[in-house]
């Protein structure tokens, strides 16, 4: 099940072991950010925009950490359960705003991130500004990539099915899709819920591989970063946003030498990619559509 080259307790050459340790966190981040990019993709695929992926991730992270530390639940229970709280919040935000144009969902989800940040800061059980530390490392690399592959497969199958066609129709023109009998609000809410599930699981995995979570990790800026994953890659297929996430995760590491100018490059790359590749780096679609 787990790829041998990813396992740290295998007998592998010392050099490779060192390499894996050095880049262990980065490799895990690739998987987690891939999941986050997919959670963004699901929403974008129905023509909506959510800036709440980081907030959903935070809910998954905090709720799962509390399950692990206070309820002492085993990880195989915690991981699937970590999507429950994010889904509840997705419904609370999605139901009123999905009736409106996309901008409303975007702004309401930014609001969600801020409300939650205030909550984490002021309620004792979340540790306030000091966050929660001493989280056991339960998330293994193979779990992270296993979830990513599962999510990719699932979304690929959905994308090829009738649902996928309906989603694409909505993205092109929601009004026309509604006229053709597509249950637009239903699909949109479903997509938001699915995205909350993915982000919640990503949050749980990320929290259980870095020993510390804090209230300032799930705000506006990470939300923007997650959005840029998906838009850089493009949303033609589920693979594209994952590639986008990988590029933007590796970029800061590759540009380490530039220190101060790193964020400038990061921003400019996004600008250039969007201006000259408006459908993302991987603009191809799953199927050819008749024009």
């Amino acid at each position: 099940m787990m790829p041998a080259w990813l396992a740290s307790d295998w007998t592998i050459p010392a050099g490779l072991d060192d390499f894996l340790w050095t880049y262990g966190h980065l490799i895990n981040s690739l998987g987690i950010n891939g999941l986050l990019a997919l959670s963004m993709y699901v929403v974008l695929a129905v023509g909506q925009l959510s800036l709440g992926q980081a907030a959903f991730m935070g809910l998954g992270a905090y709720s799962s950490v509390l399950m692990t530390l206070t309820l002492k639940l085993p990880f195989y229970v915690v991981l699937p359960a970590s999507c429950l709280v994010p889904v509840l919040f997705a419904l609370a935000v999605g139901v009123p705003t999905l009736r409106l144009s996309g901008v409303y969902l975007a702004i309401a989800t930014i609001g969600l991130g801020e409300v939650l940040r205030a909550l984490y800061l002021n309620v004792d059980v979340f540790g306030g500004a000091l966050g929660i530390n001493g989280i056991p490392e339960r998330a293994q690399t193979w779990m992270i990539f296993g979830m990513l592959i599962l999510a990719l497969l699932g979304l690929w199958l959905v994308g090829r099915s009738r649902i996928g066609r309906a989603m694409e129709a909505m993205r092109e023109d929601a009004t026309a899709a509604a006229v053709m009998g597509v249950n637009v609000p239903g699909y949109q809410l479903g997509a938001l819920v699915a995205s909350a599930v993915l982000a919640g699981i990503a949050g749980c995995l990320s929290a259980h591989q870095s020993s510390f979570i804090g209230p300032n990790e799930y705000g506006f800026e990470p939300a923007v970063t997650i959005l840029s994953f998906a838009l850089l890659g493009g949303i033609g297929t589920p693979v594209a946003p994952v590639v986008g996430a990988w590029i933007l995760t590796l970029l800061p590491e590759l540009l380490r030498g530039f220190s101060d100018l790193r964020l400038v490059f990061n921003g400019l790359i996004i600008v250039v990619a969007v201006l000259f590749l408006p459908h993302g780096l991987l603009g191809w679609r799953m199927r050819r559509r008749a024009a």
Partner: protein
Amino acid sequence: MLRRTLLATLLIATPVLAQTSAVMAQPIPVGSVEILSGPAAAYGIAIKSGMELALDEVNAKGVLGGRKIALIVEDSAGQKDQGLNAARKLIGRDKVIAIIGPTLSTEMFAIGPVVNERKIPIIGTSTTATGVTAIGDYVFRTSLPESDVLPVTLKAAMARGVKTIALMYANDEAFAKSGFEVMKATADKVGLKIVAIETFGSKDSDFSAQLTKIKALKPDAIGLSALVEPTAGVLLQARQLGFGKETQFIGGNGANSPKLGEIAGPAADGLIVGSPWFIAKKDQVNADFVAAFRARFNKDPDQFAAQSYDALKILAAAIDRAGAADSEKVRDALLKTDYSGVMGAFQFTPGRDPASTSGVVVLTMQGGKFVVLE
């Protein structure tokens, strides 16, 4: 066949030979993770400046009989993931034997366990939150925790007739919050009456609601725990709202920066703050440090620069005493530190915190500059 063996011998022998001679001249890799970009970059940059200054002085003589220290400073951008990647890169690729940093206590909670697991000593120079050194046996800090500084400050305030106090703190900053908790506990212990507790956000610029409320309660003093920018903002607005000399402002560690005077100007006058270091300290070591810092960076050093300057020198001395560029030996040598630097005499407790609080002085702001409180 013979030729092949010979070749093989050569291939094996050459690098070994080269290595032994290179070891002598090879610089000793030391890493650092600090915030060099993003909104909190000012702190990381001050810390980096302090280390660079110390590095030049250390490398002029060298350690372990003339070897230089190669300092590799990585940027965490204040983000957990980047900080973790940076620490792993320093250990895995650059093979550093020790790490200085990171800038924030919350970053230490993420990075500390990883570095500790690899048995590499890591020395925080600005991580004042409670619980930092409890992460593990390889986690040190040279910054005095607030619990050592605040009792001195509050007692000085009481000597000036303060009996009641209102506390204000930035509740979104680990450093500020743990400073506040210490301030509250200390106030209770020394018998100050707390009349109000108010919070704000580190990025806030408006504090009028909290200050107006406090003003109606007429406390003798206001204790502030926040980074320097919001602290200055609170002071400026307090003066606008009519707080005068009758209210004693007391700063936490964050207020101890020359930037306070620069931003708040005369509004900061009269504030008192306890400090393990201050720029006008009269001993020779400190005077030399301040002069050298000004000459090189064209600005005044702050406490973050002073702390990191000492930290690098403490580490260099420990490497020297360890007798080898070996993390385990350096850790043991660090515990036996007995050093006198710009911050004064310095030793570690067995719990790897600073041992001595004798260096704490209470400063007061006068005309935009800190002077020792008489």
